[in-house]
């Protein structure tokens, strides 16, 4: 799931400074699950903004909507009949959704209401952690199911660096060393031989380094 955190309200208020008539758009996808951009957050944020703006003497009109997903054009189209009536759209979907809205509504300014985080998991209610960076070339079968790209702060591929001490990463005391995790896990699986099987080098061109990526599935078109 794509995770995110709400933007500081001050920052949003600053963005909205020029406007007094906006759409606030949430998304029933990932951001609902990680509780930053669902129906409930739309209502909470809209109320907060109305209160803040009214208190500062500059009322704002907000139309609240929550799209099924902001990353699919059909759902975005449901906004088209009225989007022109507003000065801007504040979206609390992930960055992908916001951009897609911007692409579709060319004359309306699009504003982000959340900071999009990472591809992660729910460790427990209210706590999410990163697990995947979408590098495009998965090696989890060799690393005991623990991703060196994500779990190692330096995305190293051949064992820990010198900053690994007692299983802790030098970047932050609360971060376990990804390679320690991998090695422990490989030992437990009795697969330490995999440690040597890793590719001699990692081709990062399937990752972000190759520029914006695109997936085309001929069978589905």
């Amino acid at each position, binding site marked *: 799931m794509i995770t995110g955190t709400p933007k*500081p*309200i*001050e920052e949003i208020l600053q963005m909205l400074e020029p406007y007094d008539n906006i759409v606030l758009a949430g998304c029933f996808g990932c951001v609902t699950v990680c509780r930053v951009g669902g129906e409930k957050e739309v209502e909470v944020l809209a109320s907060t903004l109305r*209160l*803040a703006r*009214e*208190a*500062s*003497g500059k009322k704002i009109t907000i139309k609240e909507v929550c799209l099924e997903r902001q990353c699919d054009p059909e759902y975005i189209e449901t906004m088209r009949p009225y989007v022109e009536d507003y000065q801007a759209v504040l979206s609390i979907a992930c960055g992908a959704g916001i951009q897609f809205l911007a692409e579709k509504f060319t004359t309306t300014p699009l504003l982000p209401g959340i900071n999009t985080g990472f591809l992660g998991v729910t460790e427990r209610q209210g706590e999410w952690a990163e697990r995947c960076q979408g590098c495009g070339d998965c090696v989890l079968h060799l690393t005991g199911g623990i991703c060196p790209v994500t779990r190692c702060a330096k995305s190293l591929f051949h064992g820990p660096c010198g900053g690994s001490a007692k299983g802790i990463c030098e970047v932050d005391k609360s971060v376990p060393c990804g390679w320690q995790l991998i090695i422990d896990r490989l030992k437990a699986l009795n697969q330490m031989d995999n440690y040597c099987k890793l590719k001699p080098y990692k081709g990062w061109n399937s990752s972000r380094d190759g520029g914006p990526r695109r997936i085309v599935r001929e069978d589905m078109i």
Partner: protein
Amino acid sequence: MIMGCLEGNCHFVNGNFRARARVQRVHNILEKINIGAGRIRMFNLSAGEGAKFAAYANEFVDQIQELGPSPINVARKKEAKNVPTGEITA
């Protein structure tokens, strides 16, 4: 003012702890948007504590009085003055 049962005494196990967390969130929001975090507060007491209820209510009223009119009301009054009568919308 939010009233809950004593902590640990919730009929619904942890309902009042959940409520407290939500109150804290609203508290933070009110602080951030300069309405005043002191305008929301949660109190815990048992059903048998009538006197405490009154004391809490008075305490909270005092707290609100001290904070003065909410910025929302100040803004609304100001607006009401500027707009000719008869055009005030509910």
